[in-house]
């Protein structure tokens, strides 16, 4: 069900939040053991919120009585936030993220914490201390990552909405693998206050939903300037649902020629071409554009993101919260053992890499240099956006891969983020929506990229396409 469908039921008096929530709880309890979208789920905690909501009275917010699951790296008072890492085991944040306060104000019911790759390091949701999440379309495959739990929860209809975070594609890629809508807003559109940082200059919180309209609704509820986040943009939040009504006619799409080289799955290519044909029928013009610096996006990302991560993750030292090794006798030992035992292998690898690129003698060659290349990547987009309103690419070169398939080879795993990463590097909004299925029945996603703070334009194009194509009506065959 979509948010508007649920609200219609509430409006008609046919059902109440507690009934909807009980349904959701039952569904999660019966199906999540197979999928494992949740890192933490406590029905009593959920029911308590419903009680509070129903007692609250007053005006009903735009998400009144709507279940939402939150990625395990967003701080919610009363729920753990562990980033799916042993090192944060048991961490109970003493404060709410700004997005959580906004969700609560809008009347949402938080269903629990969604599984993820540890500290958002990964594209498969396999690097979690809670074990992997499975793709609802094929339990032998990954849901994508790092926001795999949020994507899977939405695809499995556990919750109509979910929040994820996206540093290099962590919302869009799992949305694509799970056949749902996943939006990474413009950097600074949504407050990062309360999002446990991976790479501060790239991270954004964004919505998952099964329709574009719901994505627009959720983004509208969480977006806006936050005095607690210096890097949030002081730009008014438009009414995205109103904007959607303007339709897609006259929009200009650019398709970068660099996105169709080797490594692209033919079925993905085919689905995208058909989607573009469909767009033309909607009065959207499609032209080829060029983003020549795309080839630099991944190496730049792995320098910038790991450097920032190595610093952001330094605070996990066992002193104030989370795991502490019992065997550390000296302070040095305590740190090294706590961190050595608390972090998983991918986190360790990235911390080491990030430490290296910042270390004395290498900063200029790596981090300093990457920041300049970042400028080049951004300039590519600036130029293209003088000609077109949106850039469209496949979200991922392939559909969902099998569990364990890429675990052994970190570099190949990194390369699967090729289409999403440059969007973070340039700080642009990007959304992945379903654009077809493989013969084997796996969802395929297409990514729409827009100008800064023009999420509304993306929603217009995507909504029009979604209504015409109808992929959103397909649900995975879960019993």
């Amino acid at each position, binding site marked *: 069900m979509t948010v508007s469908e649920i609200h219609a039921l509430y409006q008609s008096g046919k059902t109440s939040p507690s009934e909807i929530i009980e349904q959701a709880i039952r569904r999660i309890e019966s199906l999540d053991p197979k999928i494992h979208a949740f890192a933490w789920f406590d029905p009593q905690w959920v029911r308590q919120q419903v009680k509070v909501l129903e007692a609250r009275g007053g005006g009903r917010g735009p998400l009144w009585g709507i279940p939402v699951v939150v990625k395990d790296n967003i701080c919610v008072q009363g729920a753990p936030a562990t980033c799916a890492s042993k090192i944060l085991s048991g*961490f*109970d944040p*003493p*404060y709410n993220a700004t997005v959580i306060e906004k969700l609560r104000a809008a009347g949402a019911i938080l269903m629990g914490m969604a599984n993820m790759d540890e500290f958002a390091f990964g594209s498969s949701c396999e690097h979690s201390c809670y074990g992997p999440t499975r793709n609802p379309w094929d339990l032998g495959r990954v849901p994508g990552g790092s926001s795999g739990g949020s994507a899977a929860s939405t695809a499995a209809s556990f919750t109509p909405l979910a929040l994820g975070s996206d540093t290099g594609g962590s919302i869009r890629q799992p949305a694509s693998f799970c056949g749902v809508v996943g939006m990474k807003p413009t*950097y*600074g559109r949504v407050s990062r206050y309360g999002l446990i940082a991976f790479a501060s*200059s790239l991270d954004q919180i964004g919505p998952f939903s099964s329709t574009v309209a719901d994505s627009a609704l959720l983004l509208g509820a969480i977006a806006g300037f936050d005095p607690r986040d210096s*890097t949030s*943009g002081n730009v008014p939040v438009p009414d995205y649902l109103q904007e959607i009504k303007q339709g897609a006619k006259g929009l200009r799409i650019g398709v970068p020629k660099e996105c169709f080289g080797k490594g692209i799955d033919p079925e993905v290519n085919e689905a995208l071409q058909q989607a573009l044909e469909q767009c033309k029928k909607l009065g959207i013009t499609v032209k080829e554009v060029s983003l020549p*610096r795309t*080839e*630099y996006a*991944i*190496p*730049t990302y*792995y*320098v910038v993101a790991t450097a920032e991560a*190595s610093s952001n993750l*330094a605070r996990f030292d*066992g*002193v*104030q*919260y*989370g795991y*502490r090794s019992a065997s550390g*006798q*000296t*302070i*040095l030992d*305590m*740190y*090294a053992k706590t*961190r*050595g*035992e608390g*972090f998983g*292998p991918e986190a*360790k*690898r990235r911390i*080491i*890499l990030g*430490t*290296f690129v910042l*270390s004395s003698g290498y900063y200029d060659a*790596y981090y*300093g*240099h*990457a*920041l*300049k*290349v*970042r*400028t*080049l990547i*951004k300039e590519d987009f600036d130029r293209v956006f003088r000609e077109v309103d949106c850039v469209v690419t496949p979200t991922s070169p392939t559909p969902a891969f099998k569990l364990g398939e890429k675990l052994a080879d*970190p*570099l190949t795993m990194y390369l699967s983020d090729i289409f999403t990463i440059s969007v973070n590097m*340039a*700080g642009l909004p990007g959304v992945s929506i379903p654009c077809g299925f493989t013969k084997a029945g796996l969802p395929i996603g297409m990514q729409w990229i827009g100008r*800064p703070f023009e999420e509304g334009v993306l929603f217009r194009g995507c909504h029009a396409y979604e209504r015409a194509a109808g992929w959103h009506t397909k649900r995975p065959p879960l019993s």
Partner: protein
Amino acid sequence: MAISLKDVEYLSHLARLELTPEELQRFAPQLEEILAYVEKLKTAPTEGVAATTHVLNLANVFREDKVQPSLPTEQVLANTSSREGLFFKVPKVIDSS
């Protein structure tokens, strides 16, 4: 760029991150492979290009000098596994810097 075991050991010390012998063995070639891939950046035409540290051109974001409530001490200490009285407790610090 060649990455030796010693390099990884140094980095693991700098990051206060104990690695198992297997991890040390594994990370050196993996790091080397990733860095070889990152070498590609050297070909980028960055001469005269400014660094991007923030994608938005924001500047001068402040808060006013007004006191807000602090966190109650019991909440401050609620998450630690080692405290004494109102303090956090750690193994003795002997200028390990």
